[in-house]
């Protein structure tokens, strides 16, 4: 069966609307496919033709990743049968019965030997709501373990913790994306939407025309470049000083009387303490710490205030400011600034965080976090536990307590009291985790590793057993986009015969493990259960069903049964008991002293990491798309020509970037877009080009977020070893 389906892109949280058509259906429309078949030898023809679909978020637009997404469906490297690694280290296909039997045995063995918490689950922000929900239930009831967390800990946890603390609730954007169209001022910190979600940029045209687009980024990124020609201001602080910069802007707001006193009085608590805490950060002092001129700090404050009185002002944060050991406090500083100006919960202004992964929003609401139960409930809350016990029809005592956040979970792999048997879903932790070398060592020390993936990712390659699962065009389900809007994913094509839905896998394993409660392999049935589970929780989906979504309704949570959902949140009250938003004073913490440089030939610099337009996350998918790989076949370290010149590094030369955790060797890309003391690496590449070999597994004390965006490295011209391009080693060649 092949049909046409209205669905959404498999990649990021913008979830661009797209239509998938079979080639036969395409021919009837008379459209010419963009690339003539035959231009690339394999696969002969795309399984489906992708086209953009008009929708409020992407307005028909797609980026290269979306356009080429269908080429992965019939990719020759696809895993289509369960693959078991023998004693010789070679993967061989086995039957599903045998595969499930081996998993069952491994789980039972680990439980018998080391206890239930020796079995761990690592989930992902790419799973549908149904899978994320059932995975949490499966871990806690079928495996009986508390050890479940997911890769969203590496993305959204800091902003989520800050949002919870301030508003009592975390929805990435508490307003529809279209609200940005008419804004007068937007302050965007640590986000490069021009590369990460290009169709988003359409919503910035209005603010650029108004000259009010302010970007905070140590690089002159493609997004920061939008501030030129009168579009706005680019603030280029030293890496690791975003928090100080935000305190400086708040200082100006307070001292120049730009604040919204009535709003602060009526809708917030904690103002006086915040006044005292920002008092010490006057613009000139902040300039000395951040390198951002005092006058631009003032200008930013004034534009935010004047924008709020005109078309609206928005403050948006991204991973650049959140992926730090003080990420929660930095997001809190951004929220405090927005509260001083009266932005959140108003009709035309706001604060938001830009969720990254496809279902990064829904994925953090339904119970794959170590400390949460479905509906964004705290696992330590007795009422929440009682509610879930009722929905699941199990005694409350059967639900384990809080587990370990991702970095701690990964550190425990193979340790005496740690995880010995690990399930990995929708995540490529061997590339995407901080201190990736240590994670790979951990994976190799496990008794049993089972990875659900459709490709032999770097993590799958470490597994004992790889279970082939479905791609987006082969399944039904829901995802929640960066606005908190619930979207339908629809099936357009039959999956390969040997691949199975993770819902099916969990249901079969639960049966084999004689688990309490029920596990369906039907997405709609699971969603119906999710509705009940989320009812009364913070992220309440109880009023949403498939029929409503299929009718095209715009369903923003919270959506309690009988309501019409919540496109714009907090208009009446914030989600704390007294209805007020909480301002929490924050201050920069002193930084640890880096390890001394052992290599006198190398220069100490600061490493920041991020994304390229052509690739997504660990690159497990996009590196297998020939067109994308051809465009960006390898990691290149971005370095300022002045810094490069001092080390004899020319454009394209091999560069070693190292620290006490590992080394990356790749080619240099000389660019004046980066500060001279900083280098940038994309994190999409494996092995010798894996940026996360250098990132530190130190974490934020509140959110558990690792330090991805501020790492000390030693940079030098690499020895004359030839650099092997990923292009030559990957299966795409």
């Amino acid at each position: 069966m092949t049909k046409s389906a209205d669905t959404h892109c498999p990649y990021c949280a913008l979830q661009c609307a797209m239509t998938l058509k079979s080639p036969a259906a395409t021919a009837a429309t008379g459209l010419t496919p963009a690339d003539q078949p035959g231009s690339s030898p394999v696969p002969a023809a795309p399984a489906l033709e992708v086209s953009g679909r008009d929708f409020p978020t992407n307005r028909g637009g797609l980026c290269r990743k979306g356009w080429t997404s269908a080429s992965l469906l019939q990719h020759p490297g696809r895993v289509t049968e369960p693959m078991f690694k023998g004693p010789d280290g070679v993967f061989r296909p086995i039957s599903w019965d045998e595969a499930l039997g081996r998993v069952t045995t491994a789980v039972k063995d680990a439980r018998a030997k080391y206890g239930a918490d020796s079995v761990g689950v690592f989930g992902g922000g790419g799973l549908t709501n149904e899978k994320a929900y059932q995975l949490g239930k499966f871990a806690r009831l079928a495996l009986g373990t508390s050890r479940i967390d997911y890769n969203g800990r590496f993305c959204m946890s800091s902003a989520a913790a800050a949002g919870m603390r301030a508003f009592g609730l975390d929805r990435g954007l508490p307003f529809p994306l279209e609200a940005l169209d008419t804004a007068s001022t937007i302050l965007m910190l640590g986000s490069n939407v021009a590369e990460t979600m290009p169709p988003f940029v359409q919503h910035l045209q209005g603010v650029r025309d108004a000259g009010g687009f302010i970007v905070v980024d140590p690089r002159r990124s493609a997004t920061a470049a939008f501030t030129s020609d009168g579009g706005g201001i680019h603030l280029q602080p030293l890496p690791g000083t975003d928090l100080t910069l935000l305190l400086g802007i708040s200082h100006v707001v307070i001292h120049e009387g730009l604040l919204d006193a009535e709003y602060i009085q009526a809708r917030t608590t904690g103002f006086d303490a915040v006044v005292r805490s920002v008092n010490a950060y006057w613009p000139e002092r902040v300039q000395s710490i951040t390198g951002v001129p005092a006058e631009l700090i003032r200008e930013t404050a004034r534009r935010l205030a004047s924008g709020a009185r005109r078309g609206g002002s928005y403050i948006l944060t991204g991973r650049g400011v959140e992926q730090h050991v003080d990420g929660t406090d930095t997001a809190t500083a951004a929220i405090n600034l927005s509260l001083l100006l009266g932005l959140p919960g108003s009709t035309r202004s706001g604060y938001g965080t830009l969720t990254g992964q496809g279902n990064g929003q829904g994925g953090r609401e339904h119970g794959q976090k170590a400390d949460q139960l479905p509906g964004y409930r705290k696992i330590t809350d007795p009422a929440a536990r009682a509610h879930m016990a009722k929905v699941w029809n199990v005694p409350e005592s059967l639900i384990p307590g809080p587990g370990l956040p991702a970095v701690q979970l990964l550190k425990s792999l193979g340790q005496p009291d740690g995880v010995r048997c690990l399930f990995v879903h929708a995540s490529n932790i061997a590339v995407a985790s901080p201190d990736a070398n240590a994670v790979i060592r951990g994976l190799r020390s496990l008794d049993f590793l089972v990875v659900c993936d459709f490709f032999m990712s770097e993590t799958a390659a470490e597994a004992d057993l790889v279970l082939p699962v479905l791609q987006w065009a082969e399944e039904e389900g829901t995802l929640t986009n960066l606005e908190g809007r619930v979207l339908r994913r629809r099936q357009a094509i039959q999956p390969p015969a040997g691949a199975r839905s993770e819902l099916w896998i969990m249901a079969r394993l639960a049966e084999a493990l004689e688990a309490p409660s029920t596990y369906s392999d039907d997405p709609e049935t699971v969603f119906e259960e999710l509705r009940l589970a989320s009812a009364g929780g913070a992220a309440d989906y109880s009023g949403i069903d498939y029929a409503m979504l299929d009718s095209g309704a715009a369903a923003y949570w919270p959506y309690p049964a009988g309501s019409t959902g919540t496109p714009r949140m907090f208009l009446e009250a914030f989600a704390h008991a007294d209805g007020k938003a909480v301002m929490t004073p924050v201050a920069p913490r002193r930084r640890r002293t880096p390890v001394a440089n052992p290599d006198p030939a190398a220069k100490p610099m600061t490493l920041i990491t991020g994304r390229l337009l052509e690739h997504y996350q660990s690159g497990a998918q996009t590196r297998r798309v020939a067109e994308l790989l051809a465009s960006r076949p390898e990691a290149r370290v971005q370095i300022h020509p002045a810094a490069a010149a001092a080390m004899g590094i020319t454009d394209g030369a091999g560069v070693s970037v190292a620290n006490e955790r590992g080394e990356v060797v790749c080619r240099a890309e000389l660019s004046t877009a980066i500060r001279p003391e900083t280098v940038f690496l994309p994190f999409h590449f494996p092995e010798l080009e894996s940026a996360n070999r250098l990132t530190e597994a130190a974490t934020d004390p509140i959110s558990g977020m690792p330090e991805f965006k501020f790492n000390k490295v030693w940079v030098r011209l690499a020895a004359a070893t030839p650099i092997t391009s990923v292009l030559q080693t990957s299966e795409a060649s």
Partner: protein
Amino acid sequence: MSEQIVIVGFGPVAARLVDELLPALRAGQVGLTVIGQETEAAYNRVLVADLGVGRTTPEALALADAAALVADGVDVRLGVKVRRVDRARQSVILSDGTSAHYDRLVFATGSRPVIPNLTGLNPDPAAPVLPPGVTALRDLRDAEVLRRAVAGRKRVVVLGGGVLGLETALAAAEEGATVTVVHNGPHPLGRNIDRGGGAVLAASLRSCGVRVAGNARSTGVEHNGPDGGFSALLLDDGSAIDGDLLVLSCGVRPRIELAEGCGLSTGAGILVDHRLRAHHEPHIFAIGDCAEVRCPDPACTECRTARGPSGLVGPGWRQAEWLAEYLVLLSEGSVEDADSLPPLPQEKPGVIVLKARGMNMAVAGDNSAEPWDEEVLTAGAVNGRPRLQIAQWADPEHGRYVKMTTRGGVLEGLVSVGMPRTAGELVQLFERGAELPADRSLLLRLDGPDQLASAGASNDPESTVCRCAGVSGGKIADAAAGGCSTVAEVSAATRAGTGCGGCHEDIRGLIEKHFQGAAA
């Protein structure tokens, strides 16, 4: 029993120390008493001039909340002075007759303004009583005096060309007062700035509406104003500068009488070692403006180059943070254990960044050497140490001046006037001790217009026009040649313009170019 810590003084530095000690206090590990002479808890003195010109409010200046501290268990005593310290009994005796026992005593008594020796001014440094119309602009009441003058658009005379004087002058002028700065020497800021920078600075001040009277030596004040108030500042050349308010901005002096009175060693400030301990007195510490870090060891190389108290708040805050950690360690156990904490690193010479809206200036370090001054530049270059190097840019017509004094590529001094982004960059390079790019002109271009050409301007057919879909100009031209005559058609054929839509204009341009070419 918990260790009793008494802090004398409740200014910004003391407030930071209190903040840092709160966790230990809440844990019951230490007890804390703070004694402040003013009736207000700590406020941000750096912003008193802003308050004086009506740019901020007293509430916004608060650095501490006495009521909240009391609720936390801090013994806060405001509006009282410490009469004396009884070191034998480890006790402080207060002006209200009460006393407080201490295990550790911290002096954070700050500094007081220098009152110049002028006829008509009471020069008693211990109890300055200034006549009406004269203020030293130190506390909230002084700010109120200035605020009235500025609001009344009066004539303000600022005596002193230091950074605080200039900030006051600029702010008052911008808010509508008529302001004259009177300073000695050829340019303001004295030895903190070099001749070129000083000249551009003075010109910039004038263009901001501030009268600058240089090379002036004042001798007295005249009181012919209403109620016997200030009416003019008298100079040694016999001239007078008329005004309604005289703001004295002649520097500060550490407040050390109390420490002297109890027999502690003092220099310019209370002498403390690298652990901020008073000499030969393990129970007493000093931080901030009143402290002078100079250890008793005459052979200490660090102290040989040490300067007196900087008068800047940054070093005081760093001392407060460090001392809090040390005091907590002391309260936990032995001095030996506490001494495992590495001592506070030596302060870099202070950075001065002018707080002003209309103009931008930053100076730091030693800027006395000139580019052609071979003798000075090579003087310190011994034992393989590189010589000083100077890079300089002067554009007085546009009020711009930059000088970078480096050794081995690292800044030892900097001057930046009228170039905000350059100043921001240089200051943080100086603070981090980071190496400058070999091409120093890079740092001069930061304030120029954006260099980046907009996308699509290139005629190279290989250059990308649509970044979202990765389509080159050549491909779009090919599509136009193939019959596509609208953006929508080009998009359908090439995917160009199907992401963010930012390249639609460029696509339109390429289509037009094709058809114009065809017509020609």
